[in-house]
């Protein structure tokens, strides 16, 4: 296995030659950068996306108890998303956090400070730790997700994200909330996912395939977390849900985000590695992914930040080369019962 510092990276962004589905030209420029416009043009694109977002917000404002349910991890991006939706757009937000058992102590404080400062309702859902540990361990040792999904996040993160997404859809249906917002940034989700419309009837076919996969990999308990009460879906007056990822339209750097959310009492964690601001398990996911795929699972989003002018290449190189060795993640591996030799 190559060390992260030995990988050949794109000369504009930082995608390595080990990243799937891309090619490089003679100058070392990756195919994604060859197709991308210059960084300044992204602001025009983001401006158009913000207008579309505002139209979705206006069309759905005041229709239910809450305008939007926000998947709120307490990390910097979802904190900023929540702040913008509540303060700038004046939406009535319900912030929802899934406690995976590995939320850093400072991040737990941040959950309370941010929601309290914004004066919005907050729900915490804690899935059974025994199930979450099984989910993480299985995700680290088995093929659960598509190859495309693994270019956006580690297998462990993908499993957690899918559980969170399913919980948000359930809440949206239960409370007829017309919008679900995530704090995902460019590279973490497909490029056209700033606004997606989920037709509940159309999605039924994917739910049935997805649940089979989760039951096969995570056991019968997965039904509670990845399943959906289809009777409840049928009875719901909501037939379509708007899934939005506003960060794709905001265009703010990490420094700006941290500066702005600091006004809400948000403080950076010191124990979650260089790519997370909430999860103690994140570095383990990175180490496992690098061992299996020879690239940092955050490289796609980091490369996108560089390409769109929101991060310097120098900082990006530092981030993508920070692959924790096993000694740094041994404690987390033990916590989920993972033997490094199984990875």
């Amino acid at each position, binding site marked *: 296995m190559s060390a992260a510092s030995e990988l050949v990276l794109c000369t504009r962004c930082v995608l390595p030659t080990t990243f799937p589905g891309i090619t490089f030209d003679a100058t070392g420029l990756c195919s994604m950068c060859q197709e991308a416009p210059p960084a300044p043009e992204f602001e025009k694109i983001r401006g158009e996306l913000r207008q579309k977002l505002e139209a979705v917000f206006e069309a759905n404002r005041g229709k239910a108890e809450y305008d939007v349910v926000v998947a709120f991890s307490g990390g910097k991006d979802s904190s900023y998303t929540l702040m913008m939706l509540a303060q700038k757009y004046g939406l009535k937000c319900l912030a929802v956090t899934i406690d995976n058992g590995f939320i850093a102590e400072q991040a737990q404080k941040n959950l309370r400070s941010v929601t309290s400062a914004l004066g919005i309702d907050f729900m915490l859902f804690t899935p059974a730790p025994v199930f979450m540990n099984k989910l993480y361990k299985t995700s680290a040792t088995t093929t659960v*997700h598509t190859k*495309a*999904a693994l270019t956006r996040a580690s297998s462990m993160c993908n499993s957690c994200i899918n559980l969170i997404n399913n919980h948000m859809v359930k809440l949206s249906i239960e409370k007829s909330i017309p919008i679900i917002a995530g704090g995902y940034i460019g590279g973490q989700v*497909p490029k*056209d996912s700033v606004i997606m419309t989920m037709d509940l009837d159309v*999605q039924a076919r*994917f739910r049935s395939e997805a649940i089979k996969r989760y039951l096969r990999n995570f056991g019968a308990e997965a039904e509670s977390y990845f399943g959906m009460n289809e009777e409840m879906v049928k009875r719901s007056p909501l037939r379509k849900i708007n899934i939005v990822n506003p960060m794709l339209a905001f265009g703010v750097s990490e420094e700006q985000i941290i500066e702005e959310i600091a006004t809400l009492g948000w403080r950076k964690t010191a124990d979650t590695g260089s790519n997370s601001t909430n999860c103690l398990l994140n570095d383990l996911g990175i180490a496992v992914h690098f061992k299996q795929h020879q690239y940092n699972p955050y490289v796609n989003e980091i490369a996108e930040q560089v390409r769109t002018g929101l991060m310097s290449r120098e900082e990006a190189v530092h981030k993508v080369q920070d692959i924790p060795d096993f000694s740094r993640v041994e404690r987390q591996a033990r916590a989920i019962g993972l033997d490094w030799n199984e990875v």
Partner: protein
Amino acid sequence: MKSTDLATETRDTDGQMDEKIRQYLAETLLIEFGDVPGATNEDENLFESGLIDSFGFVQLVSFLEKTFDIKITDDEVMSDALSSFAKIRTFVETKVGQ
């Protein structure tokens, strides 16, 4: 610009459509067909094989609509018309010909 992003100004031949779909699936969804190691069979159900998820499907529908200037209805999305590479190709050829 990706060839897959090109607007179809003149009607593609069946061979060009095949190539555009094949290239999109390989580059964006990382599903390869043809004479390469680990290639997927063209008749294989992409959902049952776990090769495409709901995100991927939304992307695929959007790609097909933009690239071939077609409108895919909810009924078509809910049917099996887009479940394998062979079915996607047949579906696009039929829609474009309508």
